[in-house]
């Protein structure tokens, strides 16, 4: 039996990687951008859009019961059901 929350480990690792790249973008814009209001707007848009995407994914993931566990055979059930419905 595999707990579903194991999948969240990979998810959070990828979120951390995406956050790292966001940080590099914010650093470059704040360090090398032109000193005016447009640069501030760009920084705000970057941050808010990242937060928006996180919010969307959180709203999707919160509907899942991550405490559940599954068997490995259940992973292939949906594929086998398509290939050969009578085998299940």
């Amino acid at each position: 039996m595999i707990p579903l929350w194991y999948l969240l480990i990979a998810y959070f690792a990828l979120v951390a990687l995406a956050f790292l790249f966001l940080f590099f973008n914010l650093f470059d814009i704040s360090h090398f951008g032109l000193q005016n209001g447009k640069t501030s707007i760009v920084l705000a848009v970057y941050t808010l859009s990242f937060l928006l995407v996180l919010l969307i994914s959180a709203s999707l993931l919160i509907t899942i019961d991550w405490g559940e566990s599954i068997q490995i055979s259940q992973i292939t059930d949906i594929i086998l059901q398509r290939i050969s419905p009578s085998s299940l």
Partner: protein
Amino acid sequence: MINLKNLPNQQRGEVTKLFLRRHWLIVAEILGYLLTLVVIPFISMKFLTFAEIDPLSDIFWGPVTYLLFSVYLLFVLVIIITQFTDYYLDTWIVTTERIINIEQRGLFTRTISELHLNQIQDVTAERKGILSMFLNFGQVYIQTAGAKERFNFKQIHNPEGVKQVITGLINDDKRRHGDASGQSSDQNHSETTL
């Protein structure tokens, strides 16, 4: 940050005349990529629904689908903002004394080149294609005597207008400082890799 009124190595009386970025069409292109990439998961789900496959109802593939969708959105966003950062930080600054060429390549490479107006031999404006004709964008090439590379103002708005401004500034500079053509090229070129 770049302050146009206080550039590095600013000379007395030096004034910024042009601050250029690439044409807004590049931003439209980036937004087009964003729209296309965001729509792909929804089209995929439509295909799966048409094939009577419903991964969302499965105990394993449902959470995996949501996770993949979330990660996909995040990385689409990161790719798009990286593309925009590359566009936003590619700039050309034309002052009454020099031209500064700032090229951002990705997130970790930035090239800054500087060229004094009295070393410029040739300024060429170029527009190619039907789109550049209608939207008035193109290239401006700046050539010095004996230099291997030339400055290239890529995909800028109104290249002919920019060429006229630069040519005017070169003539003003010659009147102020005299004609320095024939002297050795003193182009400063620095490459910064983070």
